[in-house]
């Protein structure tokens, strides 16, 4: 039997003192690192306030009318007081101060603002300083049978059509944009752009441009865009050559023809699903391997989700709230469909995972709420997908690796 009790007291040895001092220093460093984001605006503000009040004493009242967290307000206050001291200004209480400063933290649609109202006698003057606004992290959802896991690869203002880490060259990332493909290399500071190759094309890209970056076996990768195909060279120095082509795009074990002036596949498949080489035009298709055939699920241009097994076509009535992007991903416990939601592009999307035991899809895990709409969802291979999300808060495009893990 174990009895309940307090942890025994340990005497601090000189080693533990050193350890405590180190932790203390680290905490100081962390605190300094946090406030560093306010150093420059605080210095500007202190200079402006000093320009109005002159050296001497001020009272300082803080008001926060913004959504800035209290901890950040404290950091800002510390940074400002430090900068005021550097400017020769001492902060005192209102009774003894020559100047009263009311600092209001407010915000507009772009940034936080520090608005200082500086009162000297009957005169009131105003100093305004923009402050940086940092993003808050999003926590992943938990799950039932499988868990959807995402790993942010890259975030940028330019649209991303597809992104993939290049196999065999693990510290490299290829990012497909509408007019170029950029190769990034992982360094201590994160992904750094190393080379960019323009995508040459004579046709105007269609709206809702889609493109795929497909790793190849005998060269680095191929790029599929509407009416255009590009290939990376097999030898160094790396080159990317593009040509006009209506060749079909790879979709798992199939290839499908994509409309050069539109945003969907026209339904012609090669080699075909069994004897079926023509299906309804579709936005995306996912193949779930069965023992002797593949069950294809396709998000049709007409808004219906259909299943094709080579002989029968079935409309999935329960898929009314699915979006138009579907991929199939394998996990240790089976193969699943990963599906976007049917929200407008103005709203955050949900990634949902379905198991298809026979024909009827059954939700197999908690949906994952994303920071914005999914603009692209492609398989990298049977175990991974890339989801590109337009983050509605940051207005950045974010490419994520998506995998599934089984809950035991």
């Amino acid at each position, binding site marked *: 039997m174990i009895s309940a009790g307090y942890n025994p007291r340990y005497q601090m040895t000189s080693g533990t003192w050193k350890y405590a001092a180190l932790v203390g220093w680290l905490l100081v460093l962390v605190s300094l690192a946090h406030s560093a984001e306010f150093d420059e605006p605080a210095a500007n503000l202190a200079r402006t306030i000093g320009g109005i009040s002159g050296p001497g004493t001020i009272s300082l009242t803080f008001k926060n009318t913004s959504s800035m967290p209290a901890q950040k307000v404290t950091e800002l206050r510390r940074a400002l007081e430090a900068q005021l001291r550097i400017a020769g200004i001492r902060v005192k209480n209102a009774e003894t101060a020559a100047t009263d400063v009311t600092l209001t933290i407010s915000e507009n649609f772009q940034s936080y603002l520090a608005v200082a109202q500086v009162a000297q006698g009957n005169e009131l003057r105003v100093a305004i300083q923009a402050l940086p606004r940092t993003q808050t992290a999003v926590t992943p959802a938990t799950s039932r049978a499988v868990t959807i896991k995402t790993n942010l690869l890259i975030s940028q203002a330019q649209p991303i059509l597809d992104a993939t880490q290049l196999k065999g060259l693990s510290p490299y990332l290829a990012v497909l944009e509408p007019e170029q493909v950029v190769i990034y290399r992982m360094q201590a500071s994160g992904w750094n752009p190393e080379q960019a190759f323009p995508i040459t094309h004579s046709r105007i890209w269609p709206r809702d*441009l889609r493109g795929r970056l497909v790793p190849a076996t005998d060269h680095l990768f191929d790029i599929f865009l509407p009416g255009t195909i590009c290939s990376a060279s097999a030898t160094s120095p790396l080159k990317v050559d593009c040509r006009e082509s209506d060749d079909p795009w790879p979709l798992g074990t199939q290839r499908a023809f994509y409309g050069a002036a539109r945003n969907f596949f026209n339904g012609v498949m090669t080699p075909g699903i069994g004897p079926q080489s023509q299906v309804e035009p579709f936005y995306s298709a996912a193949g779930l391997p069965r023992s002797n055939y593949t069950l294809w699920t396709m998000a049709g241009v007409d808004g219906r989700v259909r299943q094709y097994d080579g002989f029968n076509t079935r409309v999935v009535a329960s898929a009314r709230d699915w979006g138009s992007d579907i991929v199939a991903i394998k996990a240790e416990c089976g193969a699943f469909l990963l599906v976007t939601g049917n929200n407008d592009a103005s709203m955050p999307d949900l990634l949902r995972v379905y198991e298809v035991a026979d024909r009827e899809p059954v939700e197999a895990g908690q949906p994952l709420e994303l920071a914005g709409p999914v603009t692209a969802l492609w398989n990298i291979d049977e175990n991974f997908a890339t989801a590109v999300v337009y983050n509605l808060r940051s207005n950045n495009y974010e490419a994520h690796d998506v995998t599934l893990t089984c809950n035991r």
Partner: protein
Amino acid sequence: MSRSLAIASLVVAALLGVATAETRPKYGGTLRIETRADWANSGNPARTLVLETLTTIAENGSVQPKLATSWEPQADSRRWQFTIRKNVKFHDGSPLNPTNIVDALTVNDCDGCPWRSIRAQSDSVTFEFSEPYPNFPAELASPRFAVALARAQDTGTGPFKVSDSRQDGVLLSAYEDYWQGRPFLDSIEVTTGRSERDQAMDMEVGRADVVEAGPVQMRRLQNQKARFTTSRPVELLALRIRTLRPELEDARLREAIALTIDRSSIHTGIFQGQGEMTASLLPNWLTGYGFLFPPQRNLTRAQELIRALGQAPSVTVSAEPDPLLQLVAERIALNLRDAGVTAKIAATPDRADLVVRRTTLTSGDAGAAVREIVSGFNIEPQPSADSPQRVYEQQRAILEEHLVVPLAFLPRTWVVSARLRNWIPGMTGWLRIEEAWVAESPRP
């Protein structure tokens, strides 16, 4: 079950039955838009589908390239050089080039344009100014500086071209060679000069897909569970004080008039709580420091100022022809009488001393927006400022003249039909129809 309820149930059931997954945009279809403004009015939002500007303001407020790909300041921002996008064609097939941009921007001598001179070079356009103009790229995003062929005013480079003009509107069709890709919609019928009341009726009977709605129509359509999309508060309602008679040249009287206005009762009684009261030229979402311009009435101070003038003043009050603004003018006349000012309602705004007007922000850049608003009230604008501090100081200086008295910012509200998808209102309420599409079945 009543007959109407049974029919409604059938409709809902039918909608559920055909409801389908639709996220990626679909090509095709015709959209029907109605607007209050005439087609020729540069403030008509549908014009932005036809005519484009050299720059644009992104949702985060940053200036982004449009028909210009880059720009650089020279001579301490007294000169700006804009490099023009290549491979862009006007709707008649003629190529966009620096010369036709200069022609477009000088077609009517560009009354009120901020530049001193403009000239075309091989691949760029250069603007010269008398004084530094750091915020000029943001200002060029205004629809006032939209580029149309000088010889054919409705021929632009936008995603839609005018394929038919009627007295009550225009028919727009998708421009296949649009440099950013053909829009999803095949065509748009734009009916213009339509009152908000008529627009609401057309929406009710299914004759329109997108209509504007004021506070009164909103209440009516809300009862019908219509789909609304509301912008941030972008429409400024303000009182313009004209110095047509000597008494009003005295800033003390103008200040007294400004202090007399009871914005709170206007906001709750007339605007039904919509939008925000303001004493600032810019809305708080754009600046963040609206609190520096308190909107409260100060009748005591107003009466002191009037007493100091020595005699009871007399003014005429009017409004632009708009039922909402006329109600505001009547309320202001009552407020003025509280302070001892003799205020009469004038039938037309032509010779009135005080006129209630509205103007819509089209820029998400604070500096450019101040200039736009001041120009809208026929006050000589200063070069637009490029920092929060300078924008504040510029606003403060303009407001201390008491020639414009801001009253309220109202949002622009649009009612959209169930079949319209992916229509995202821009920051200032402008339509972004080029990204929209129509679904075969309405969303349940």
